[in-house]
């Protein structure tokens, strides 16, 4: 299939893009890498009447601003894999981004596109949720900051309003060197994840000072595991290797969607297995200091 007809606009500045998006409202969509949107349009699952190409906008930076790193909407996935700030402060983001699609997709797909598309199996929404990232969105009405906990509303649904565009995402810098792990299971390397889990923690003298755990595949949006986090916070890092009952208590509360790829029960067990491995791996990395 091929896309339904639409009008193409190439924005020359953020103000120009926002004016076009305001003018076309629900009929308008920003176009950046197109790695998800154009596929949806080819399948006619998306039929925007106006595409606003934002590729010329200056939204390609990864920079430290105070206690956050601020990542522009046009930062391509590949960029995370060779950025020093990401390597130093966000090892789990680096590991998760490496699982996004395939090399050609990582080279072209963008941060803003992935977060705005809000695919339930996508890596960046999970990583944003894991790190309590803040989404920065702009419209002619001004700039709005949205907590990742409020941003994802459902499968392919976000808090973005018509006329509004994601311009940046901000990740708060950790207080000390974090450790963690990102694991996902997919049918083919780089394909959509059946389920994925991510752990990030800071430790002090062998004790877990702070820990965040998130997963996708359990719901239509990436979710945190607050009970599991509470069970592990303050414990010795050795507890990460034997978290079985705490993991079971968490996964028992899940009702993952079932589909042609995996039943609900299979997904629940998969999440439990991935969590056990990710926690053990995070603990091991902490002890070995890598």
């Amino acid at each position: 299939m091929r896309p339904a007809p639409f009008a193409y606009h190439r924005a020359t500045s953020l103000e120009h893009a926002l004016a076009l998006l305001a003018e076309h409202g629900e009929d308008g969509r920003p176009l950046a890498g197109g790695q998800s949107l154009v596929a949806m349009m080819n399948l006619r699952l998306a039929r925007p009447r106006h595409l606003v190409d934002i590729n010329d906008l200056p939204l390609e930076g990864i920079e430290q601003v105070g206690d956050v790193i601020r990542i522009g909407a046009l930062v391509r996935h590949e960029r995370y894999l060779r950025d020093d700030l990401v390597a130093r402060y966000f090892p789990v983001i680096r590991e998760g981004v490496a699982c996004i699609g395939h090399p050609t997709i990582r080279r072209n797909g963008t941060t803003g596109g992935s977060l705005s598309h809000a695919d339930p199996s996508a890596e960046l929404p999970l990583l944003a949720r894991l790190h309590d990232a803040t989404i920065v969105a702009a419209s002619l009405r001004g700039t709005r900051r949205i907590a990742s906990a409020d941003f994802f509303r459902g499968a392919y649904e976000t808090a973005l309003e018509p006329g509004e565009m994601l311009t940046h995402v901000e990740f708060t810098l950790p207080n000390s060197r974090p450790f963690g792990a990102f694991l996902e299971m997919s049918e083919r390397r780089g394909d959509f994840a059946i389920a994925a889990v991510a752990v990030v923690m800071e430790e002090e003298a062998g004790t877990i000072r702070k820990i965040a755990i998130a997963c996708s595949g359990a719901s239509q949006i990436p979710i945190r595991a607050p009970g599991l986090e509470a069970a592990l916070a303050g414990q010795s890092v050795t507890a990460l290797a034997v978290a079985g009952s705490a993991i079971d208590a968490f996964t028992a509360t899940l009702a993952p969607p079932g589909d042609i790829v995996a039943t609900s029960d299979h997904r629940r067990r998969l999440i439990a297995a991935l969590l056990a491995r990710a926690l053990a791996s995070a603990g091991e990395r902490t002890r070995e200091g890598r």
Partner: protein
Amino acid sequence: MIEITLVVNGDRRSLRVEARRLLADVLREEFDLAGVHIGCAQGSCGCCTVHVDGVPRLSCLTFAVQCDGKSVRTVEDIGGPAAEHALQQAFRRAHALQCGYCTPGFIMTLAPFVEAMATENRLPDENEIRDAMSGNICRCTGYQGIVEAVRQAIAERIGTGAPA
């Protein structure tokens, strides 16, 4: 209809296209470049990979209007009619194609990888090669030959051994 200019395999041409025309279709239909294959039109198979300003890109997920003023390179330009690029020759030697449908996409995805590895003077392990080719699907499942061809092409370029 929008007027755009594309430089395709060095040939600069202006044409009028509908905004919804995919780059893959424009290359096939307006430029007669039938080496641009369209397998899935949803970014899964990699058959339509071309280079836009030197960077591999899926031409089925790209609108031609987005490429106004840009340079596009297809498999036809990689090794000429005789397919003389080192990677194409390695494909021949290693039996890295069966029906050949996926071959242009694999060549366009992997030629820059071979160059990058040669520049680094490094022979990647099999895992790295498989990661580099993970976005392309061969329905004859001829992957083993493709891995071997990539290995041979890189080995040849960095001079660590004659091709088998």
